[in-house]
């Protein structure tokens, strides 16, 4: 009777070791994540022989056997490195034309600027070969052009939500049908760069959110928002985004 030993998918283990972030296996296919849900590769690996564990790659095909490992037993670090290295080498052999980017081996830290990308250092874009002669271990250096795009999209979506709230008496909770854009089209005349400043009428030093709350309470006649309310944060985000490039000038009246 053949007993199937535990088939261990090593994805989690590899991520935990921090060697290979397997989402990059999707490489040039940005929609791979969405499609993965519907067409996950079915793992069709042979069962392990006695006293061994089969370790498979997430492509569902490549696998190797680790002898001397009982099901449920942890590999040593050295063992794990060897096994995963072997799997990756096998994968690369099978896909010679696919570009595998090791994020950690990407270009130097952002502080090392170049004429082309002064702010970003020499971060490799998609399709570029990484410069292996770079400093290792920087958090910021591990990020990719694609990350920046994702972050910017998230930020813009949040600013856009603030835009919606800013223009909607209903979302602001106004009881008299008034919204921010009635006095502040495109957030004009909000001058967020002048806070903090002493606001005589509030009898305290005010931040932008204090003015927003005051406006919501008075001209808009709604209920004040908690500073951590997503709407308040989104309103701040929208107002600040409209003043990009304006020098900070706290205390200006």
């Amino acid at each position: 009777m053949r007993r199937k030993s535990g088939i261990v998918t090593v994805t989690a283990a590899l991520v935990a070791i921090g060697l290979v972030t397997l989402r990059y296996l999707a490489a040039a296919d940005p929609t791979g994540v969405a499609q993965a849900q519907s067409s996950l590769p079915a793992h069709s690996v042979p069962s392990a022989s006695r006293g061994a564990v089969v370790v498979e790659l997430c492509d569902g095909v490549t696998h190797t056997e680790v002898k001397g490992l009982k099901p449920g037993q942890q590999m040593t670090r050295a063992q794990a490195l060897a096994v995963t290295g072997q799997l990756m080498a096998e994968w690369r052999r099978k896909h010679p034309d696919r570009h595998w980017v090791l994020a950690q081996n990407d270009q130097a830290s952002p502080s090392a600027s170049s004429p082309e990308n002064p702010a970003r250092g020499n971060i490799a874009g998609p399709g570029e070969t990484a410069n292996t002669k770079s400093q290792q271990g920087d958090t910021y250096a591990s990020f990719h052009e694609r990350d920046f795009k994702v972050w910017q999209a998230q930020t813009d979506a949040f600013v856009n939500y603030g835009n919606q709230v800013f223009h909607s008496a209903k979302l602001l909770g106004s009881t008299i049908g008034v919204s921010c854009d009635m006095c502040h089209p495109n957030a004009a005349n909000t001058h967020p760069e002048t806070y903090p400043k002493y606001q005589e009428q509030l009898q305290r030093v005010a931040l932008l959110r204090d003015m927003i709350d005051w406006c919501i309470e008075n001209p808009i006649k709604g209920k004040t928002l908690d500073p951590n309310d997503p709407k308040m944060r989104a309103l701040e985000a929208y107002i600040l985004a409209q003043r990009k490039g304006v020098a900070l000038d706290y205390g200006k009246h």
Partner: protein
Amino acid sequence: MAARHKSVETRFYEDRDRVLRALRNCDRRTFLKLSAATMGAVMAKGLVPPHTFQLIEVANAAVDKNWGTHGAQGSAPFRFAYISDAHLYERTLNQRFIRAIVKAVDDVNALDPQPDFVLYGGDLAQLGSPGQLETGRQILGNLKAPVKMMVGEHDWFLDLGEKWQELFGPPTYSFDWKGVHVVVLQSVYEKDFWTARKMTPAERMQTVAGLDNAVQSRFEVGDAQREWLKNDLAKVSKSTPLLIFSHSPLYKYYRPWNFWTEDAEQVQAILKQHEKVTVIHGHTHQMLFNQIGNISFYGMLSTAWPWPYAPEGLPKLTVQMNRADPFDQFDGCGDGEFTARTDQLVDTVYNLWDRNPVTVRADYLVSGGKVDRPPAPQFASY
């Protein structure tokens, strides 16, 4: 034989007789005022008889109500007040804007002497609903002086003017007043942006109500109305002064906020053929004035809220009003008056609530800013 051509002497004696008749009809107080004024003028001019014609000129200018339609030198001066951009919601929803328009009505009713008429500058309702328009009509009905109504985009785009015309008549019309030809325009027509997007009337109105969304079209007077204007002005002599009431500015200030009239140049081309033209507009909710060629432009204040100045495109001649204090509901808002002078130019007083009023004279505009500059702001926008 009809005296088609009158000699200078005939005309002089006719005018003189008219003045003397008026003098005979005035009450003691006016007579004393007149005598003092003429004496002052004579001394100031260092006149020695027989320069009696100049005395009649002064008497002519001083006697305004009793005068006829034409003076010796030009039109009779007259005053009219304005209330504009009230943006009313119904009483059950928003008391704030209602309090403001009632304040303006009180201001105008308290004027002594009363103005000849009151111009309502547009945007009576905020979202063009019948209830909002009715509320506005009721409140304006408390004005003692006659009211001339003008439509704004907030009144129009819910039902494309149906309720407005039921309440107030045609949006475009003209009339003559004391030697001045007055035209009221509907200058907030927009090219259809709502059909393709399958908008409901409420959505269309909500879109137009937002100043800073790029969805709506830019305001225009439109081909048909420009034709009407041309024909209307064809009957008016080039030397008759024109007063044009319009909601949009009839020039190009800031496109993203529709502080703009798309066919402004074409409208100005029709107007500038007349010697003295003054355009009075609403929509911008701020102290605003401009001069383009021989056309003077004055923007009216709103009773409801002040707009900030646009980031670009502000006319060079405009002296900004101080930034509005958000803690004061009425600051940056108000009403005002216009004076049509004997020399056919128009001055204005910006009756800013909770601030000193600001007078802007035509001399400032016509001289390109060299004389009579209005007071500078302490807190311009930034």
